[in-house]
């Protein structure tokens, strides 16, 4: 990453959980927004397909 171009961006995302490992789903959801610097699942809405809330800061 170019040092001069480094910019941080806060982000909140909703992610519908699919079957299978969770980490790859989260990384795929964050990737279009930039390089994740820090993230966490901060809420889970239960259901047949759980909805996860992600809060993050990305390098964009």
């Amino acid at each position, binding site marked *: *990453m170019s*040092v*001069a*171009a*480094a*910019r*941080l961006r*806060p982000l*909140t995302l909703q992610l519908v959980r699919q079957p299978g*490992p*969770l*980490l790859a789903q*989260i990384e795929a959801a964050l990737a279009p927004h930039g390089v994740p*610097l*820090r*993230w*966490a*699942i*901060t*809420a*889970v809405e*239960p259901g047949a397909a*759980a909805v*996860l*809330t992600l*809060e993050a*800061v990305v*390098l964009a």
Partner: protein
Amino acid sequence: MTAARPLPTLLVIPTGIGCELGGYAGDGLPAARLLAAASGCLITHPNVMNGAALYWSDPRIHYVEGSALDRFAAGAIALRPVRRQRVGLLLDAGIEEELRWRHLQVADGCRASLGLEIGPVLTTDEPLAVTLSQGASGASWGELGRPDALLRAGQQLKAAGATAIAVVARFPDDPGSEALAAYRSGAGVDALAGAEAVVSHLLSRELGLPCAHAPALSPLPLDPALDPRAAGEELGYTFLACVLVGLSRAPDLLPWPPAEPLAAADPALLRPEAIGAVVAPAGALGGAAVLACAERGIPLIAVDNPSVLAVSAEALGLEVLPAASYAEAAGHLLALREGIAPAALQRPLARLLLKPGHTESH
């Protein structure tokens, strides 16, 4: 004392979510000391270990910045313990002269009284412009107006021979805020912590060095009702001493698996494959390190330690060993270290059943 070999264990108490234990000024340290004794090898992050003017050094505890801890849990780096680091000191140009002198004198004190190797010292070419924010969850977050200035200074320190970097950014003073009053009374989220994590994550990720952060703030007026958990931050003019001590023996971060075979076997090297357990608050299991460990089948001990989050094992479909306290978590670690099946310590103990379609055999 157990005769079993150490069980490398990760202790995660996420920053800026108001954990009852570990959400304040290094008040996770007693739990870390206990878990280090139980496991024989504990890897944990600055939020657990940093008590501003208070710190504890234990050769069984490895001080690893949060994003490096995530990479270790994911198997992307190994940790190599060292006798000492040369800690470069990176100061935000936004720090006023008097406060800058206070930080330099803390660094000098650590050199003179503790024997740490500190230097070079560098000021950023622009103020870092830290701002604080809060997510919808109540967790603290923050941003950095000039990440480029941070990275430039970090690269200069690395080029000048620093093997670890302590960064001090000027944080906004807000002595009258409700959030600060709640934190000092032991009922709130550390509003600074989220931005601190962003600063150290960025630097560590880009430089591949051990890094940690201390905020620079003006002293607060005396509060006789101060909660003991927040007291460590009100003993001096800076939050820097704990960071310098932690980094002085923080392990090196090695890309893993190595690009080339290692020259010689290093019995002290901590490989990610060796992680034997991870300990985290039961309501804050949705972080990168915990999920990476869970997906690798590493035993996860979920401790009752309330925070603003409610991201539980049940919500995420994770299998955990529940613990009502860090003392109980220490018991779980001892059992794992000794090879005792945790289920054997619980009652009732269910009878073994033959799986359908199989015949009994010896």
